[in-house]
């Protein structure tokens, strides 16, 4: 083997190996994600300060902050927020409960599946917001109507995700449950429910987004209270600052609710954390 060492030096690898050109993106810029939004706010502020941006098109950032404080102090904003939150929360609660119960009934028994699944699949094809005219005829335009529309939207989403998760349990786990002699109740408790939990949480997160979407739509038709109503009125008077305050509140709703759900999900699915590293 010594002849390998006798090779002329010119053929040997260079002292420092040449590094290939990096094709990946490389290291991320620190705080990079905040950069884009900050830049927009800076441009917006400059445009407002120099008068290049007409306040009738878009109010200055500081006007919006001031309006937000005023609306909070005179109680208008907290009242609207509470009204909107109550609608969304009630709709979400009833919808999630109904959707999940239907999914369990349909996912755990063939009779349930025969009765429920087809019906929900038909409903799925019809956008929930398309039911609004019919529901107005049935329920009027009060709070009940709004809560029902949100609940129907949520129930459909929760049903689809939870049902898919319940019926999609890995067949290897079903075989294991049979091999270790679990009875049906034990099988459902130890295998099906925990196995379906990730799908259930996915449903919750999709549902919470959808509930805000439904809320926004509902509050712009025939509402007499709530964030949407506040914004609708502001539109009539050309108050872009109030409209943006409303948008910020909607944004916070979405952001906070998703963060809370993520936190609950992390706790409930602690066994998964080790999988993702």
């Amino acid at each position, binding site marked *: 083997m010594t002849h390998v060492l006798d090779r002329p030096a010119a053929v040997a690898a260079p002292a420092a190996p040449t590094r290939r050109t990096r094709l990946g993106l490389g290291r991320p810029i620190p705080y990079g994600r905040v950069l884009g939004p900050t830049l927009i706010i800076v441009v917006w502020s400059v445009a407002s300060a120099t008068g290049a941006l007409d306040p009738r098109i878009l109010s200055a950032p500081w006007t919006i902050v001031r309006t937000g404080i005023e609306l909070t102090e005179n109680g208008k904003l907290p009242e609207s927020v509470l009204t909107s939150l109550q609608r969304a929360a009630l709709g979400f609660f009833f919808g999630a409960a109904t959707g999940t119960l239907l999914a369990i009934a349909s996912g755990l028994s063939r009779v349930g599946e025969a009765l429920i699944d087809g019906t929900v699949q038909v409903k799925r094809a019809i956008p929930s917001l398309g039911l609004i005219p019919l529901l107005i005829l049935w329920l009027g335009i009060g709070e009940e109507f709004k809560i029902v529309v949100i609940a129907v939207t949520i129930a459909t989403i929760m049903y689809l995700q939870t049902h898919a998760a319940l019926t999609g349990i890995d067949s290897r*786990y079903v075989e*294991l*449950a*049979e*091999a*270790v002699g*679990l009875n049906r109740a034990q099988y459902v408790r130890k295998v099906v429910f925990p196995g379906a939990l990730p799908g259930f949480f996915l449903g919750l997160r999709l549902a919470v987004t959808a509930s805000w979407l439904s809320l926004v739509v509902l509050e712009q038709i025939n509402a007499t209270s709530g964030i949407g109503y506040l914004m609708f009125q502001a539109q009539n008077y050309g108050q872009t600052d109030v409209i943006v305050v409303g948008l910020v509140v909607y944004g916070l709703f979405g952001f906070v609710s998703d963060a809370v759900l993520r936190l609950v999900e992390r706790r409930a699915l602690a*066994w998964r954390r*080790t*999988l993702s590293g």
Partner: protein
Amino acid sequence: MATHAVRVNGLTRQFQDRKILDDLDLTIAPGEFVALLGRSGSGKSTLLKAIAGLDHDVTGEGTLEVPHEVAVAFQDSRLLPWLRVLDNVELGVKPGRGAAALEEVGLQGREKAWPAELSGGEQQRVALARCLVREPRLLLADEPFGALDALTRIRMHDLLRELCAKHRPAVLLVTHDVDEAVELADRVLVLQDGRIGLDLPAHDTDRTHLLSALGIGAPA
């Protein structure tokens, strides 16, 4: 005490028109370690599933006498990822004996771990512990070491041999590894054309004989 742990008579299993098992007979004595070899698709797993009672929606006939206390080890450890190690071991049995079984497979102190926190070899040990707590009279193992690296596999062989010597269950080990079969088993079977084509005591089995039964010719 029964003279056999398992008795299979005239077992037939078919999928569509293809007969996988064709009038198969097999008897395993109590405490006997039997290895089952066969080419892929020869019906090894079908036989194991039939004995385990895990074959639904298949057509076939034959009689099976199988003890009540059966444990099954799969190729993957098949631990439920959402149950801690101890709960996986005690799945389907009264709690209490899991910790002792974990100690027997060398995993004392890992009761509270999640399966995903264990290495492949450790997961397969947990699966063995899950078999142990059932105090099986029959252990059915479907290539339980197939997914392990060579070194881990050797250690698992030693562990399995040790545990079997201590608890004396009858064992039916499905494997594609001739050396593993000869090393671990008392008796080696080769499944051919849906029946037991070859049935030899392991201690004086000629390896080339087994290989040729599996369709691998001896080197010229």
